[in-house]
C-alpha cells in the first residue's frame, strides 16, 4: 500500500494538497495542536510484539511500523482496510489514519501479535 498524503498535524504547507487542507480545517487544527507529541508515532516490532501495543492519534496521523526482528512480519487491519507486504528486518510500513475509530491490527504470520490504534479528534 502506498503512503497516504504526507500530512502531519501541526505541519502546514509542504505536500499537503487542497483536500488535506480542507480535511485539516474540518477536523480542527486546535485539537491537533493540543496533542503535538503524537504527530508521527513510530511502532517498533521487536521480539514478536508491537511496541507500543496501543496508541492514540488524531485523524490524519501517519503511523510508522519498523520490523526489528529477524523474522518477517506483516501489519494487517482486523477488517483488512490496510495490509502491508511482508516486512523483513528493518523494513518499514506507513499508514495514515484519516478518520476516527479503533483500528485493531495483527501480523498475518503470527496472529497472536496484536495491536490497536485509536484515532480520536
Amino acid at each position: 500500500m502506498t503512503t497516504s498524503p504526507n500530512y502531519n498535524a501541526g505541519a502546514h504547507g509542504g505536500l499537503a494538497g487542497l483536500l488535506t487542507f480542507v480535511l485539516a480545517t474540518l477536523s480542527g487544527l486546535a485539537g491537533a495542536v493540543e496533542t503535538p507529541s503524537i504527530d508521527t508515532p513510530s511502532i517498533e516490532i521487536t521480539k514478536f510484539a508491537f511496541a507500543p501495543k496501543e496508541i492514540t492519534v488524531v485523524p490524519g496521523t501517519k503511523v510508522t511500523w519498523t520490523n526489528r526482528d529477524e523474522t518477517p512480519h506483516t501489519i494487517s487491519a482486523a477488517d483488512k482496510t490496510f495490509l502491508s507486504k511482508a516486512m523483513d528486518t528493518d523494513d518499514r510500513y506507513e499508514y495514515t489514519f484519516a478518520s476516527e475509530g479503533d483500528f485493531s491490527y495483527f501480523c498475518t504470520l503470527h496472529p497472536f501479535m496484536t495491536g490497536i490504534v485509536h484515532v480520536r479528534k
Partner: protein
Amino acid sequence: MTASNDSKPDSPADPTRRKALNCLAAWSGAAVVWTMVGGVPRALGATGSGPVAAASARAFTFVQISDTHFGFHKDANPDIVGGFRRAAADINALPQKPALVLHTGDVTHLSKPEEFGQAKELLQEIHIDRVHTVPGEHDALDDGLAGYLKGFDHDGKNRAWYSFDQGGVHFIGLSNVLNFKLGTMTSLGDEQIAWLKQDLARVSHSTPIVMLAHIPMWTVYAQWGWGTADADQALALLRPYGSVTVLNGHIHQVLQKVEGNIALHTAMSLAYPLPTPGQEGIGEPGPVKVPAGELGKLIGTRQLTIVRGKHELALVDTPIDHA
C-alpha cells in the same frame, strides 16, 4: 525439550522409549530410531548408543526435510545453502535409496521468485526424482500461494493440497498457512476438510496414511500459534485407519504426540533452531543463535521406513553434524 501433550505417557515397562525421549530432551543430536507397531511408536535405539535396526531390503523408505528457508541469511545461520548441501549429500549416501522426498514447508524465507527458483535448483541436488512439498507461511507472503504454486503445484490443480499413492501408502499434503485471523491459530478451512473427506472415501482403512502439513496438527503451544484450530476435524476423518503418520514442520524441532493409531511428528529445520515451546528466558519463537559448532546438531533431516507386512514404520532423525 519434552514430548509435550503426549497423550501416551512414558510407560515404565518400556524403558527404551523413555530413553529415546530423554535423548530428545537433552538435544543430544543423536539420531533416534522409531518403529511403529500398530500405530504406536517404540524406540529401537539411538545411533549414538548402539546398533540401529537396518531397513529391510523390501522396505519402502522416504525422507522428510523441512523449513529450508532459502533466502535466510541472518546470524542464526549465515550458510543455509551449505547446510542444505550437507543434508543432500547425506540423503544421497543412504544405503537404500529413498523413494521420495517430502518437504513440510517454509521452502523459502520470504516467498521471493528468486528464492523459489533457488529452491527448485537446490532440491535437484537430492538425487531423488520425486519431491513433494506443502507450503509454509513463509511461502505464502504477499501474493498468497501464487508464487509457490508456480514451482510446486504437484497435481496441476493450482491448489496446495493433494494426495497420491506410492509404495502402498496413501500420501496427503495439506495447506494450513493461509487462514490466519487475529488472535487465533491457523486453520485448514472447510473447503480443504471437505476435500479430505472426499479423498479418503476411496482409501481402505488398512492403507497406511502419511499426511503432511506445515504447522503442527496438534496444539503444541497456542500462545505462539503452534497449532491448527480445526485439526481435530481432519484427524477425526483419519481415526478409522490402522496406521496414520502426520508429519509437520514449522517449529524447527522434533516433538511427537500419539493419539490411538495416529502418530504426529514435527521435524527439525534445515535452517535454524527455534526455542522449545514457551522456553524460559526467550519469550518469542524467533531464530535461536547458538554457539559455533552447535548449529549442526540442531538442524537436520528425517528418514522414514515402512516395512511391508510388518506394519512397522521407523523414523530416523539425523542432524547434519553426525558421526
